């Protein structure tokens, strides 16, 4: 019952279906488009739509973080490297049939079918969000991050520091 939208879909359902269709099409584009720069732009679109899906879940802080960190910083890094390396579409020299593609598609369909039938079907009775409506506010998340999750936050900050130092070391001319 809940796997298919009601006819006609409610406003929220129509909104979600539009955003989800866009995100799914963009993620297909990342996999299927040969040119790396177009795949990267598809990924930007996917991240941006995903941010709005986060908003629809009420997670305001994480939606904004998604736009800033993923669609902003990380994708700029990707595009920068693509242009620096001057990557073109994957070389067509090896035109012989790549057996990995149908195999991977088959495995993907299998994963989708198995997880979908075993995990998604038992959960389809859950229709109502149970958390508080203001659960995504910066106050609640920030308070938790600096009390309950103080040690994980410290570990993540050390990880980011290591990442900064590591990328500088790797990017040096003579390693």
């Amino acid at each position: 019952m809940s796997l298919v939208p009601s006819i006609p879909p409610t406003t929220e359902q129509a909104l979600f279906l539009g955003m989800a269709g866009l995100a799914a099409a963009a993620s297909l584009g990342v996999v299927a488009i040969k040119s790396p720069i177009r795949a990267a732009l598809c990924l930007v679109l996917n991240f941006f739509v995903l941010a709005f899906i986060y908003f629809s879940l009420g997670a305001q802080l994480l939606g904004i973080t998604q736009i800033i960190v993923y669609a902003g910083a990380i994708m700029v890094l990707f595009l920068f490297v693509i242009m620096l390396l001057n990557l073109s579409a994957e070389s067509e020299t090896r035109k012989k049939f790549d057996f990995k593609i149908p195999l991977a598609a088959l495995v993907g369909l299998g994963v989708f079918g198995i997880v979908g039938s075993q995990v998604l079907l038992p959960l389809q009775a859950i229709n109502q969000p149970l958390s508080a409506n203001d659960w995504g506010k910066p106050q609640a998340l920030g308070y938790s991050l600096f009390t309950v999750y103080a040690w994980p936050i410290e570990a993540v900050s050390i990880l980011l520091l290591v990442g900064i130092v590591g990328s500088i070391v790797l990017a040096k001319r003579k390693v």
Partner: protein
Amino acid sequence: MNGVPLVWYLGLGLFMFTCGAVGVVIRRNPVTVFMCIELMLNAVNLTFLAFARYMPTPLPGVAAQPQNWVSGQAVVVFVMAVAAAEVAVGLGIIMAIYRLRNEVDVDDMSMLRG
């Protein structure tokens, strides 16, 4: 959002994860492989947020009021930080390999094979 069942979010996350996993296997360009890994991380983020929204659970030892139940969001914050660090280091490695060999193709990178 009222009226949208949990499985729709999970289905979108599952689709994105499958796309990413297939892309990691079939693409030969390491930058694109990285983008597929990002796709999988985002799918997992979406799944975390959907579960946290529809099936919230309190942490042991945390105040009982529901606005403090933000474990799902906290995990998403950590995943984002790890993804940022991973991309910075990974793209640095790709740049180093490109400088060494002047071409990047994951099928040809077999120097680490024993």
